[in-house]
């Protein structure tokens, strides 16, 4: 065991490098100064006040939350239907369809961003709610399809057949038997879709306008221009929020493991 001490020290250093940078943001958001100097010399809540007093920060936060919630629902419904067809169906082109639906995760987002920008310019969707919904849903689909397909492929189909033998229609068997079993997978899919949309910057930079932008877009332009600690307050709020969501998703997954 003692021979592993250097390895453990190495692991601890790497873990520190992975975790510490993000945590720096939290104390900084309570700084009493105007600068981003770290560690802060005085403490205050003034940057949280600044965040909630600024109508644009709050509006962008609300935009992000609304878009992410709707994208979560859309991607979960579309992704679950697709996963069901992909895991159960035996038809030609299944592999191609699967690869197609996962592709948005692999193609660099900048390429997707300029493409969507070109399309949305033509359709006048730049800076619209619909535009954000479409672009983010496409990006979030793989993050639903991967966990949902994995629960579906482990699901025991004899349960569905038993329901069918008892006289349930296919739809009824799905909603009454399959859905409750795979629900934890759906929940984690929803959470990942939500977070994908909530965090998305690159595509959003292209399709936002001064009239409609999201929180990450505002953070991006704020970092480029005037850096004041309001952005640290925004970052801390985001950290708390996404951590809570992911905790729920992981809890759901561990419940799923116990079930299966």
């Amino acid at each position, binding site marked *: 065991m003692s021979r592993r001490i250097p*390895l453990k020290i190495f692991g601890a250093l790497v873990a520190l490098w992975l975790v510490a940078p993000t945590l720096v943001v939290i104390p900084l958001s309570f700084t009493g100064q105007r600068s981003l100097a770290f560690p802060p010399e005085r403490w205050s809540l003034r940057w949280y006040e600044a965040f909630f007093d600024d109508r644009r920060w709050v509006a962008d936060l609300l935009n992000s939350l609304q878009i992410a919630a709707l994208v979560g629902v859309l991607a979960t419904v579309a992704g679950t239907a697709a996963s069901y*067809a992909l895991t159960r169906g035996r038809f030609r082109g299944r592999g191609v369809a699967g690869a*197609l639906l996962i592709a948005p995760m692999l193609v660099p*987002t900048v390429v997707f961003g300029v493409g969507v920008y*070109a399309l949305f310019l033509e359709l006048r969707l730049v800076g619209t709610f619909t535009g954000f919904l479409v672009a983010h849903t496409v990006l979030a689909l793989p993050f639903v399809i991967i966990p949902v397909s994995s629960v579906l492929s482990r699901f025991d189909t004899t349960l569905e057949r038993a329901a069918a033998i008892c006289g349930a229609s296919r739809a009824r068997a799905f909603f009454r038997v399959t859905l409750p079993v795979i629900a934890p997978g759906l929940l984690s899919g929803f959470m990942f879709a939500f977070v994908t949309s909530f965090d998305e910057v690159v595509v959003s930079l292209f399709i936002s306008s001064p009239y409609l932008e999201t929180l990450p877009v505002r953070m991006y332009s704020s970092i480029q221009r005037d850096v004041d600690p309001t952005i640290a307050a925004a*970052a801390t709020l985001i950290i708390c929020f996404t951590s809570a969501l*992911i905790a729920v998703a992981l809890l759901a*997954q561990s419940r799923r493991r116990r079930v299966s």
Partner: protein
Amino acid sequence: MTAISPRPAPGPAADRPAGPGPRSGDAGGGRAPRSRRPLLLVPTVLLVLAGFVYPVGTIVVRSVTQPEFGPQNFSWLLHDATSLQVLGRTLVVAALATLITLVLGYPYAYLMTVSGPALRGLLMLAVLMPFWTSLMVRVFAWVIILQDHGVLNTVLGALGLGETHLLGTTTGVLIGICQLLMPFMVLPLFNAMRSIDRRVVQAGMICGAPPWKAFWRVFVPLSLPGVFAGSLMVFILSLGFYVTPAVLGSPRQELLPNALYTQISELLNWGRGGALAVALLLTAGVLLAVTTWVSKRVTGKAAGVTGGLEL
């Protein structure tokens, strides 16, 4: 969901056709329920075709049609010194990011497989942390750390090691990218290593190999599928970083995605932007194909692109 019309009595039993292919009677409808299931795919596939394939296709088409039909944008890409530099720099950064995450991730993943559940949980939590903290938050955190009066220089100064200048350099960009990509390296490595039977390594030692040799000749080759999957994912993903280089790097040392953004958003040059996009897609695509082929030859299995992503 479409309701299935009344079925003949043996319906449920007919659910599982013996062969994998669709039955000959599929086109007739009604008879084989499986044929209806692709219907569920249609809306999603249409959405991805209209919202993803069409836009990306437009950009590819524009690379040969804007401002006029012909290969002029590609000859610009391959003859212009600046764009060649951008291309080279992007590949070097991606290769370095892959190497760094592999060198740091391999021992880390190994430690995860040999440690107890509590330590393993902590290490897993640390590696997943960058996964779910917002990209903007992380990039902002690196600004605070790397800036000239930032955390890093404060620490270095306190240790009496002098000052560094990292914000606005490619090194700074690499530090940010690698932190972000660690989970994509560690998770496939961990999955591959976890499935290795440790008795095989012991057998090597019983046969007289010293521990390092047993590790190198037995354990490392068995972990190669994880190495391939992780490296592939990290390399492909690191080609596409836009925000991190834009904030942590300098405009004079642009990477491909940033050059692409500039061409289209600022210079409105869709043709040249399209050529850069094609270069990015081709690099990622060729790499995907080559790595899949090599890993098939070496390990007998295709490196799963989504390897490790199933949390």
